[in-house]
């Protein structure tokens, strides 16, 4: 009688499978229509935004320094691939692990504070990582780590080929996305949801909420790292851009624009923001202005974001 006694919940999720299937189909077709490198970039950022959303949307913690996880993993993966000569899968894994470790340290420092305090602490710690990346030898300072070899994944997939690279990125993105879905709908996710709904009550039930938030934070950091490591392999470079605080702002923008706490929102948000950056590149500082304006409009008028508003309109969680 377990699952079928929950008709509401079941109905609540079925359409998500359909949307997911549509998304996968779209991503399988798109590279034949749209320039794949753009898609790969967008997918990396979509994963980054989803990881960020896992934190903000499902634990209510707003990190304003998430770039440090993207960037740190980028550096480690690039270094691993280039200097240690690791194959791409191990290089990405190394970056992911590094970000998870960084997430643990940062989380231990920051997790006891909430709201804006948490945001400012993560921002400041990210700034520390930025300066470290600028000065440390192995990161190459302003130049970054250049000409990172893409290599051959699992000894068979030659990533020099653009389409192979694309499908590997897609696979990584989907794996990350599915993991996030799983986390949200796992026993652990259930506790997170309970904490977000009523933290004092969760404490009174014996939950040490800091531990749960910390795990969510580390997971989010690790997945951001996965995105960062993949991005370094795709673009064959790791640079300061990814650890700069403006990147932390961008991921907030993507998530906010797409819809915090929605499954598909961050993906939509990331694609829009990346498209805006790419296609408005000629307009110089207007890109920044446009981003700022989108930010302001979202906060003032569309706090649910595009997908969130759509979900409310359709009365279904998206």
């Amino acid at each position, binding site marked *: 009688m377990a699952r079928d006694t929950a008709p509401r919940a079941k109905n609540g999720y079925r359409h998500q499978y359909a949307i997911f299937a549509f998304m996968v189909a779209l991503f399988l077709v798109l590279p034949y229509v749209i320039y794949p490198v753009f898609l790969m970039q967008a997918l990396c950022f979509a994963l980054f935004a989803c990881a960020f959303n896992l934190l903000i949307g499902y634990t209510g913690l707003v990190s304003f320094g998430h770039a440090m996880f993207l960037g740190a993993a980028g550096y480690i993966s690039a270094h691993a691939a280039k200097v240690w000569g690791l194959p791409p899968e191990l290089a990405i894994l190394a970056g992911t692990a590094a970000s998870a470790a960084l997430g643990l340290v940062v989380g231990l420092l920051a997790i006891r504070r909430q709201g804006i305090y948490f*945001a400012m602490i993560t921002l400041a710690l990210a700034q520390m990582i930025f300066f470290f990346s600028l000065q440390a030898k192995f990161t190459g300072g302003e130049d970054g780590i250049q000409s990172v070899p893409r290599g051959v994944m699992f000894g068979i997939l030659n990533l020099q080929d653009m389409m192979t690279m694309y499908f590997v990125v897609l696979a990584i993105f989907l794996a990350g996305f599915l993991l996030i879905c799983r986390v949200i709908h796992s026993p652990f996710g259930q506790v997170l949801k309970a904490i977000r709904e009523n933290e004092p009550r969760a404490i009174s039930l014996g939950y040490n909420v800091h531990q749960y938030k910390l795990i969510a934070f580390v997971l989010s950091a690790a997945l951001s790292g996965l995105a960062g490591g993949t991005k370094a392999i795709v673009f064959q470079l790791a640079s300061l851009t990814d650890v700069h605080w403006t990147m932390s702002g961008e991921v907030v923008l993507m998530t906010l624009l797409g819809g915090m706490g929605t499954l598909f929102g961050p993906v939509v948000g990331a694609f829009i923001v990346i498209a805006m950056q790419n296609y408005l590149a000629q307009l110089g500082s207007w890109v*920044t202005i446009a981003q700022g*304006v989108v930010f302001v409009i979202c906060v003032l008028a569309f706090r649910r974001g595009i997908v969130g508003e759509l979900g409310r309109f359709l009365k279904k969680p998206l």
Partner: protein
Amino acid sequence: MFELLGISPQALFGQLLIGLINGAFYAMLSLGLAVIFGLLNIINFCHGALYMMGAFVAYLALQHLGLGYWPSLIVAPVVVGAFGMMLERTMLRHLYKLDHIYGLLLTFGLALVIEGVFRNEFGASGLPYGIPPTLSGGQNLGFMFLPNYRAWVIVASLGVCLATWYVIERTKLGAYLRAATENPTLVQAFGINVPRMITLTYGLGVALAALAGVLAAPIYQVSPLMGSNLIIVVFAVVVIGGMGSILGSIVTGFTLGVVEGLTKVFYPEASSTVIFIIMAIVLLIRPTGLFGRAH
């Protein structure tokens, strides 16, 4: 004469003084942030952009209106303060009932817009703004050459900080402000127009940033980017001092300026990170900051 790690006491004095000057900017900016945070519960991310605007107003006033440095010290805070009040009235006001994080996001967006507009208009390489003739030159203090203008910055900002502190801690207006920080609803129920007070407070905090901008203009280039890097350091200063504490932000501002100055002598590589390291340590030992109150 003793020597400390190879630095002569003279040089050390010089460095301390220099640190105090930077501290003056930290103090003024974090003071404005503290005042705004206290009453509005908003972390004003566009504080740096408004600081930059202050410098630009001074620059433009000189270029187009022939207004020199001294009138700009009044004009720029007034203009930027008015702009701030407009932002509060039209945008921030709608966010008070929401999670504080939205205030941070909105002001972050505003910072992007303001900086983008100025960058578009004036480029990024910075514009010159001269030291006012009455303050050019300097004093040889024996252990260092102290430019008159720097001495003025210390005096002026100390004066402004103390004046702000006095107004908030010792006057009726300040009592309203402190009371409204604790319990705005009740203060309004006493017949005080709290929304207007919030607008004015935001204006005041922003005007402090603009004033710091004018003071900074002759030292640094007037550049659209001048605020964005400073602001994160100032955030760290605010976290270390304890958010919302007036005296805390002044004292921490000056102190961290000095600490940073000394780091530039002993281990310059760390001078950009030292404040963040201090922040991490303070958070571990006293999560509410050095002067913060537990809630």
